[in-house]
């Protein structure tokens, strides 16, 4: 197994001092699991939980990057420093990726109050990347006020945000074919705020009505999920979006640092368990388990049941 290492004093000090190169370097090290996870967590835990995390998701073509770009302007005029983590899918064949989201945020490159990082999902499903908790913690340590997460945008499967983001913004746009169907299942449930972007297009009102109807169906009437209309290319409606987000942040006390850290810990834990289990098993002597494998092959033992049993054991350990 690859040797993990401690974070150097120099890197840590620079990271804490907000040095962008240090942050940038450390993010990749976290993506590559180069640091010893318990050690790095102990080093940073006193410094995390301050940064608000806002997630943006929605099917491809709704203008997520463009909306984030406009949202950055909004945050900057409130004089907060903002980091963007934009996730793009990797090629299933080569593992490589073309990370293109920052194209649409190019206007902010000269602003020292904006940090934009493109991240490959490296095959991870769920809309984010495996190392997302660690990345967010690092940005947090480096002292950024707000993190905007942009999911892959595969639509329904972008449910990772629930674990990670304080506020989840689900974006829709008219004219994407089967309009609302695209976000019907799963992703609808996670929204704290809905956005209908490209609201100047024909059919925008129809998209609004469809969305409203779906919200009316699912919601308890006291906790209505708001719908904000935006034209991200023109910056229209973005201040309203920010107002809705700010309102919810306060109402739900998501500014609670402990709650935030716990949220991220859940993901961090899941990643570490998964990573270690996989490596552990892979490095074990295969012949030790040959009987189990035979049963699995013959179907005497069900793979999913076996794994579920293991997870149950884990839950017991955690419960104690």
């Amino acid at each position, binding site marked *: 197994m690859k040797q993990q290492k401690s974070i150097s004093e120099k890197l840590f000090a620079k990271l804490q001092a907000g040095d962008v190169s240090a942050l940038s*370097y450390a993010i*990749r090290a976290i993506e*590559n699991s180069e640091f010893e996870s318990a050690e790095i967590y102990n080093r940073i835990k006193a410094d995390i939980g301050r940064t608000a995390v806002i997630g943006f998701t929605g099917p491809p073509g709704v203008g997520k990057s463009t909306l984030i770009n406009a949202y950055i302007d909004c945050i900057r005029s409130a004089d907060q420093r903002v980091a963007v983590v934009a996730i793009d899918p990797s090629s299933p064949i*080569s593992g490589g990726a073309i990370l293109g989201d920052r194209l649409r945020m190019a206007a902010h490159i000269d602003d020292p109050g904006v940090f934009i990082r493109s991240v490959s999902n490296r095959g991870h499903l769920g809309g984010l990347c495996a190392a997302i908790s660690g990345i967010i913690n690092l940005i947090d340590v480096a002292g950024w006020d707000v993190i905007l997460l942009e999911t892959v945008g595969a639509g329904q499967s972008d449910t990772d945000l629930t674990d990670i983001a304080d506020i989840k913004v689900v974006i829709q746009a008219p004219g994407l074919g089967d309009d609302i169907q695209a976000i019907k299942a799963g992703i609808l449930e996670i929204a704290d705020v809905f956005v209908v972007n490209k609201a100047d297009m024909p059919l925008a009102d129809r998209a609004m009505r469809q969305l409203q109807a779906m919200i009316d169906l699912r919601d308890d009437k006291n906790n209505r999920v708001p719908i904000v209309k935006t034209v991200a290319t023109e910056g229209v409606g973005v201040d309203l979006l920010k107002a809705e987000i700010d309102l919810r942040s306060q109402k739900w006390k998501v500014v609670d640092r402990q709650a935030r850290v716990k949220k991220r810990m859940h993901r961090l834990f899941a990643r570490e368990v998964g990573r270690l289990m996989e490596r552990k098993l892979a490095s074990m002597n295969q012949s030790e388990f040959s009987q189990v494998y035979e049963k699995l092959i013959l179907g005497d033992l069900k793979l999913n049941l076996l794994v579920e049993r293991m997870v149950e054991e884990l839950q017991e350990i955690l419960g104690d």
Partner: protein
Amino acid sequence: MHESEVQMESPPRVLITKIGLDGHDRGSRIVAAYLRDAGMEVIYTPPWQTIDAVVGISRQEDIDIIGLSSLATDHLIIPELMTTLTNEGLDAVRVVVGGIIPQNEIQKLLDSGVSKVFGPGTLREEIIDNVKSLALSAQKLKRQKWEEA
């Protein structure tokens, strides 16, 4: 564990971009696709980037290799980019240039710190191999910078 695993876990991060005035991007788009298909993480920008933007992106994205395409005369300002990279503490980043660079101006680029100039007709494998090994050396330099006293 294995060399291959180490490589897999730290794919080269490459910035493919164009500075200056020309916008012909057919070549840079093809190279971006090649590098992606070779397992690299490629940040691709539209043409007409400023030198400051290239430096800023390289810093924020932890870029190992900047690949610049120049088909007109924009390579004439690459030495200015090299100086800025050094002044900004990004001297670990390796720079390669592809496109049409007159024979008598190649040396000027190499002297300014450019690692490699690829002329038209360079084969895919040559580009990929060079970028890979340059990325490894960039990563090594960064590791030295951040992890050693």
